[in-house]
């Protein structure tokens, strides 16, 4: 990036983060939680973008990563007393990593559509297991637990309020964004994009494509799992609905609406989708997906670069 656009970018970044820090003081309770949710889903969408946008591997498996992050956190919060925040994060990430390893193995042996369908099936496998293994996972009803405090054992312990939780989530998501951004702009990230452009050529040049794909899947899975942990902490429950492939579908929708391969785009896409959902729910109650779905399809046809791409072109004029 040129010096000037880099300056603009970082200014914009700081402005937005500042706004997000201040927002709990300004917005009513409902909207505060809403913004926090946008951030969490945004994190999920970003993790999905690593695979779809940067490596070119369409995955419908993110609900498995997200769900297992969620249930992992639940496991930590239910089995250890007092509920420990860091343990929850740890368990959640381990759960997500386990699934990611499984998926990563297949990612190297399948391409395109086969991979997409397989990840879809995986989500469903986990859904069925979680749904039917009632003794462990609570089955259909899921698990409820209490929110852990922001604590460093021995030093201090602060129970979360809506605002402090929001800042915590903001910190985690912002850190994740910066980390992912650093990764995608590194030589590693360049190789991923090269794989997306032309896998055969990348392999011919000499890169061990398989290894890069595995790392991409692991990365994607970990951050998606992290999103799941955050969600569990915020809402204090874990339910099989979140392992259903629909969640993966929504992640993909965020990506497409926002603009794939941009990292920021998916967050914008998540915000856009959630706002649409909120708006349409007022008129259509639970059938908001009908107009939102139609908008989604229209965007695929007419705005394939997503909102970000559209704005970019509009600004360049």
């Amino acid at each position, binding site marked *: 990036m040129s010096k000037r656009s880099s300056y603009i970018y970082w200014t914009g970044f700081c402005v937005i983060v500042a706004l997000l820090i201040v927002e709990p003081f300004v917005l009513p309770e409902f909207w505060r939680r809403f913004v926090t949710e946008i951030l969490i889903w945004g994190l999920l969408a970003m993790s999905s973008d690593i695979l*779809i946008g940067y490596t070119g591997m*369409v995955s419908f498996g993110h609900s498995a990563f997200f769900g297992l992050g969620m249930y992992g956190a639940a496991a930590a919060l239910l089995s250890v007393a007092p509920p420990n925040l860091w343990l929850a994060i740890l368990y959640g990430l381990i759960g997500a990593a386990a699934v990611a390893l499984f998926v990563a193995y*297949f990612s190297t*042996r*399948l391409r*395109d*559509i*086969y991979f*997409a*369908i*397989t990840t*879809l*099936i995986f989500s*469903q*496998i986990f859904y*069925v*297991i979680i*749904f*039917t293994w009632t003794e462990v996972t609570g089955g259909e009803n899921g698990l409820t637990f209490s929110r852990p405090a922001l604590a460093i054992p021995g030093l201090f312990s602060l129970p979360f309020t809506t605002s402090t939780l929001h800042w915590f989530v903001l910190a985690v998501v912002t850190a994740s964004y910066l980390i992912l951004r650093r990764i995608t702009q590194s030589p590693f990230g360049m190789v991923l994009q090269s794989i997306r452009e032309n896998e055969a050529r990348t392999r011919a040049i000499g890169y061990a494509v398989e290894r890069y794909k595995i790392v991409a899947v692991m990365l994607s899975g970990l951050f998606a799992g992290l999103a799941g942990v955050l969600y569990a902490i915020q809402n204090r429950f874990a339910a099989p609905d979140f392992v259903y492939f629909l969640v993966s*579908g929504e992640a*993909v*929708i965020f990506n*497409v609406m926002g603009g794939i391969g941009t990292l920021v785009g998916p967050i914008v896409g998540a915000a856009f989708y959630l706002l649409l959902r909120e708006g349409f729910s007022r008129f259509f109650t*639970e*059938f908001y*997906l*009908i107009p939102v*779905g*139609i908008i*989604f*399809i229209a965007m*695929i*046809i007419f705005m*394939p670069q997503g909102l970000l791409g559209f704005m970019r072109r509009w600004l360049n004029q």
Partner: protein
Amino acid sequence: MEPISAILHALPWDQILIQTLNGIVTGMILALVASGLTLIFGIMDVVNFAHGELFMLGAYIGVVVMATSGSFWLALVLSTLVVAIIGAALQITTLRPLLGRDPLTTILATFGISLVLQNYALWQFGPVARKIQEPITGRFSLFYLEYPWYRIVIAVLSGAIIGGFWLFLKYGTYGIWIRATTQDRVMAQAMGIPVPWVHTAVFAIGAGMAAASGVLFGPLVGVNHAMGIDWVLRAFIVVVVGGMGNLGGSIAASIFISLLEAYASIWVDPAQAVIVSFVVLILTLLFRPTGLFVPTPK
């Protein structure tokens, strides 16, 4: 000898017999659904996520027609026609503009369509399941068990529809157009075959087949907005296991998987029996990715 005869005695033969029949019946319906899916994929490289919803829509239209006319057979025919037309309309409006773009976009577009259709059905018909009366009641005796006639009818009809379609492909006037377009889209165009319309027609036929399956299957379970999802997942598994674009393979795979699931449900919860299909898929992808029933891996 002792252990073998012990095992043979322990096996629940009557259940195995029933599940064999169930497996074949479900397999034939799955074959009908999967045929449409594999046809659409084979000819235009479109992974039709909305296929399960076309199945569901077919079942609902069947409910409506039966409620007004009382005739199951009329419901079957009308539903097939109406959904075929809806399918054609969907293809023209949402899939044609995406021709030539990244195949990812068609998966997403059909996914979007499936969301819209599902919620539309939920909106119009509500969450309570509807029932379709089976046209032929009564059971027949199989050894010392009783099995419903209607299920046999389903299997036979599904087979007839698939068979009829296969004959059309082989000998019908437009069958050649479809086969030529599947093999070489560009040369088919150069020979004057209106390829865009062939694509629309094939999508419509696939949709119609899904709808027919929905109506046929309706009396066995309740008709509700979410019924399509399980079917589309299984149909995808079948298409992969049977070999993408391979009609005969899809049919064999459908029956194979349905039989396995049916047998599994003797010992496990039916909701969990579906894991069997998943396992078959994974094994196929690992060891014979071009399809279990494809004669020679290409």
